């Protein structure tokens, strides 16, 4: 095609100046910067012709922040207050991927990673012939505009990521984590064009529920964070894990392979989804960028693909996510080249323009590469599953992406330019410690009312009304369900799922997220959420040395150096603590521009990092739940308590943020977790709960309530070195590295022997009386409350609120 004067409908850019190039990009929602538009212009000058509309759309999509992660690969000049400025050679490369390389090297022959960062999901080994793939995505902007559809297609998209991993992993559980503004936000304080947080919550939960339940994938783990900064821009994280035979992990198309599309038809929905995620939300953002989901079609695609995989028909497979066919085919064939015939794509309606067909983000579509002789067999499978499959084109060895429509070439791009031509961004980041007032301990004497307030707060209260709407039992593998205890209402630290029923072993899943710590210092926020996720796994019996983690950054505008500085701080912590805990990142995702434009300026979300963690348990036999199991058992507090109330629930209920954010001390907490894991393996632990939001007081209340068994604790038994005198500080501090553990009388000696030399205090025991009683440092009662009252405060409906 080189030398041809025009291709498709030309877009005249060859003669435009900088300003006109930028305007052209804005007018078309391409989200391409000045430098990027100039690079495009230069490329087409060498091609000797103007680009076609389709080519511009393909470039905009491929180079979008969503697909290319330009911020994470940009060169950053970082200046931290009081330090020399440093040059960061890409956050992803220098921190995230580097941490994984270091950890894997240290693990040597014990390395359980199978595929990291390369495929559509991260993959670790399950047993000798089976692997687990795990991916977490965000779908924030669509969920802000259309909560039900946005959240549903969020989960639909991440399911396809797992289906598109290796030659197709069978989805086995979902996770979901949301960040909203408080549900009781006053209506008259809503910015224009913003949906009320309660409406967003109900829409998002319904969307996740209807998609996940219909797909028959259990939603086993989740969480919600509330903060008013999410008013205009809620966050919706959706995760999916799948299992895949190890022998089906290897993928790769070759020249001559047939490119097939499997699944739903192509329409105009979700155009510009990839590029729109890099633009600010405002009151006139078009809702046509949101896709429309149909879980039953995706279910049919899943069944057809897994069968095709098992019959050995697939050479390569990937999902149609952001950017549709353009992204899927452009990625799959980038080392080879491809030719595509758009008229072969089944359409929902016609006419559609060529670029609309190629870029559409219509849901439930997968692209696979197969040997042409396998097409008939694939077609037969698809006929039984009642799903459409068509041949779209071919893998070539031209190293170009050539697109035809009705006998005309409408696009002809060099793969090298498409994938490597984007100019690397140079950015500036600054970070300085925030000067925030300390959170004083104001509560004295009896702090029962503070505990009840904490339990009733949006960030702590029961999530049962939401969890029950998700089918968390389907596939029959729920070993530890999200709600545990005698009345199945206690909040478990991690869920445990047997992904394959006829194999030994199970997968534990937990996560860490905190939207308040990051407003003080993103470094300790990131460290804390990494540790929280690992602690969750250890609480249920997971081995702290067998953990794999996923990072999902949601940030505001990275063009603002102070927000990018926050990101650098968080990424540094990700590196430091992943290495310190020996927990490799296997997959991750980032979402920027999470801000909402109002007349009085942008509302930006707080720096938010979700860490999802999983580990493979060798057997389901030795899992432990957090509900108290019996009376007259000992209660131990493991770990050291410091006065760390910054970003705590205690600070929040006083309307403050505070400054003493919890630190992370792996040198203390990792040895403790290792020994705790041994104690659980030896069946010495009856129940175990990790201390996180709300600290010791909330953890004790939750354990007692979940078991419907009372507890009597004495703070005078806190470890010797603790010089904290204020009961409230001991009870509500959110120091990391702590667990509350129930041990039966008969195991006391064994347990204490195992724990010798580690911070472990016998704090009290479980009692007949259905109440929680805590004696303070002075010997006075600090907390005394009936379990019924705990239940009343804690059980607050998020659904009908």
């Amino acid at each position, binding site marked *: 095609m080189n030398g041809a004067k025009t291709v498709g409908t030309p877009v005249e850019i060859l003669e435009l100046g900088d300003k006109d190039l930028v305007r052209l990009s804005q007018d078309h929602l391409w989200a391409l910067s000045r430098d990027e538009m100039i690079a495009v212009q230069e490329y087409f000058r060498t091609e000797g012709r103007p680009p076609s509309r389709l080519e511009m759309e393909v470039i905009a999509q491929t180079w979008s922040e969503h697909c290319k992660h330009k911020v994470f690969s940009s060169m950053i000049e970082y200046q931290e207050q009081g330090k020399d400025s440093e040059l960061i050679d890409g956050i992803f490369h220098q921190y995230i991927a580097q941490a994984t390389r270091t950890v894997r090297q240290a693990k040597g022959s014990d390395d359980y990673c199978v595929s990291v960062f390369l495929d559509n999901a991260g993959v670790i080994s399950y047993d000798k012939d089976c692997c687990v793939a795990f991916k977490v995505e965000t779908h924030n902007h669509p969920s802000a505009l259309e909560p039900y559809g946005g959240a549903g297609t969020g989960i639909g998209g991440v399911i396809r990521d797992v289906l598109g991993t290796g030659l197709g992993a069978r989805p086995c559980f979902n996770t979901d984590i949301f960040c909203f503004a408080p549900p009781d936000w006053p209506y008259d304080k809503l910015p224009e064009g913003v949906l009320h947080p309660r409406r967003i919550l109900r829409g998002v939960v319904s969307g996740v*529920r209807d998609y996940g*339940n*219909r*797909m*028959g994938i259990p939603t086993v783990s989740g969480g919600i964070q509330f903060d008013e900064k999410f008013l205009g821009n809620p966050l919706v994280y959706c995760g999916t894990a799948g299992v895949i035979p190890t022998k089906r992990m290897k993928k790769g198309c070759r020249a001559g392979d047939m490119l097939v599309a499997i699944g739903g038809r192509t329409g105009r929905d979700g155009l510009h989804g990839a590029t729109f995620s890099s633009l600010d939300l405002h009151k006139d953002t078009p809702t046509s960028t949101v896709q429309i989901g*149909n*879980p*039953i079609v995706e*279910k*049919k695609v899943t069944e057809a693909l897994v069968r095709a995989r098992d019959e050995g028909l697939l050479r390569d497979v990937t999902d149609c996510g952001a950017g549709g066919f353009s992204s899927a085919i452009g990625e799959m064939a980038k080392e080879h080249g491809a030719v595509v015939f758009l008229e072969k794509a089944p359409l929902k309606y016609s006419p559609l323009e060529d670029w609309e067909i190629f870029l559409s983000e219509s849901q439930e579509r997968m692209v696979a590469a197969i040997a042409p002789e396998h097409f008939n067999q694939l077609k037969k499978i698809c*006929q*039984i*599953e*009642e799903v459409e499959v068509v041949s779209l084109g071919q893998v070539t060895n031209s190293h170009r992406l050539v697109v035809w429509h009705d006998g005309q070439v409408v696009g002809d791009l060099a793969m090298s330019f498409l994938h490597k031509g984007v100019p690397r961004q140079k950015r500036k980041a600054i970070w300085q410690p925030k000067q925030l007032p300390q959170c004083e301990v104001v509560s004295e004497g009896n702090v029962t009312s503070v505990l009840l307030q904490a339990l009733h707060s949006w960030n702590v209260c029961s999530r049962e009304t939401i969890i*029950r*709407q*998700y*089918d*968390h*039992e*389907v*596939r*029959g*593998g*729920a*070993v*530890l*369900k999200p*709600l*545990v205890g*005698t009345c*199945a209402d206690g909040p478990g630290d991690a869920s445990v799922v*047997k992904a394959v*029923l*006829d194999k030994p072993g199970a997968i534990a899943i937990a996560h860490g997220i905190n939207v308040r710590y990051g407003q003080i210092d993103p470094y300790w926020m990131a460290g804390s959420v990494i540790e929280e996720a690992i602690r969750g796994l250890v609480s249920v019996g997971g081995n702290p040395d067998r953990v794999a983690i996923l990072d999902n950054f949601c940030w505001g505008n990275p063009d603002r150096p102070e927000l990018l500085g926050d990101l650098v701080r968080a990424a540094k912590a990700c590196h430091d603590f992943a290495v310190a805990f020996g927990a490799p990142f296997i997959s991750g995702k980032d979402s920027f521009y999470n801000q909402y434009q109002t007349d009085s300026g942008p509302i930006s979300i707080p720096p938010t990092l979700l860490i999802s963690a999983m580990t493979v348990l060798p057997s*389901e*036999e030795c*899992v*432990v*739940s957090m*509900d108290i*199991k019996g009376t007259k058992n000992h209660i131990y507090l493991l770990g050291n308590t410091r006065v760390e109330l910054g970003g705590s629930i205690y600070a929040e209920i006083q309307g403050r943020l505070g400054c003493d954010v919890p630190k992370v001390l792996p040198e203390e907490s990792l040895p403790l977790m290792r020994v705790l894991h041994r104690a659980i393996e030896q069946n010495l632990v009856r129940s175990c709960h990790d201390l996180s939001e709300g600290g010791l007081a909330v953890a004790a209340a939750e354990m007692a309530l979940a*078991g419907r068994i009372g507890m009597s604790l004495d703070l005078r038994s806190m470890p010797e070195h603790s010089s904290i005198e204020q009961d409230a500080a001991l009870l509500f501090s959110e120091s990391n590295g702590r667990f509350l553990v129930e041990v039966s009388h008969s195991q006391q000696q064994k347990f204490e022997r195992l724990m010798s030399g580690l911070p472990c205090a016998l704090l009290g025991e479980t009692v007949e009386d259905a109440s929680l009683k805590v004696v303070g440092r002075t010997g006075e009662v600090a907390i005394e409350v009936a379990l019924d009252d705990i239940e009343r405060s804690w059980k607050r409906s998020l*659904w009908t609120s």
Partner: protein
Amino acid sequence: MARVRQKKEIRAAVLRAAGTNCDYETGYALTLAGARPVLVHVRELLDGIKKLNDYHLLIIPGGFSYGDDLGAGKLLANEVRYLLGEEMTRFVKAGKPVLGICNGFQVLVKAGFLPEFQPGEWSQEMSLVANDSARFECRWTFLKPNPKSPCVFTQGITEPIPVPIAHGEGKVVFRDALIQEQVVNNNLVAFQYVDSEGNAGPYPVNPNGSAWDIAGICDPTGRILGMMPHPERHVHQWQHPWWTRRRHNEARGAGLRIFENAVQLCKDSL
């Protein structure tokens, strides 16, 4: 010898359609119960690729067949009734057991196969409608068996058994009081929702507001059973929500007996 054993193999058809999603664990439960499960897509029956007659036992598992468009189970019910009616009739008349779980129960009811299998008429006498809570709920319930019921699946179950539900439309309603009276008087109620002590109670003991706390219904022969709860999700002890509290020696789950009874019946009639 090998041939004899092969002959004794119980083949259980697990019927699939677009949106069926409990086929995996249902097949697993059948395997534990001693049968060989075969996933049979309704399309394979319609196209004659597989024949219902080749199986000893039919299970219509849970899910959202065809997305529950037009009502839960309605579209698959119409296919089973109008397109597969003859095959179904032959299967049932041969005395082979049929179990519908959750969406499968909705299919059996909406096809008019329950509370009585009357070929030709297929009139729908009852329905499963939206839960009183007006939302999908996943929770564990206790099911009290009816000792007087002719149901072959519940034989030997004497105490309330814990089994989870997961549905949005599981409330049993009857066409009129007379039908309900007949169902109750003829002991077609196979399971009722109760508390752990075996007593009836309001929500959440009865999780959906079902008439007469009905969780499952059989036909007068006892060989067709439909139930909203999922016995296939309680075939191991570790599936029970309290299992970490008890750690008793019983490794099996209470739902397994239902599948074993069905397989035993098939073996007896071989």
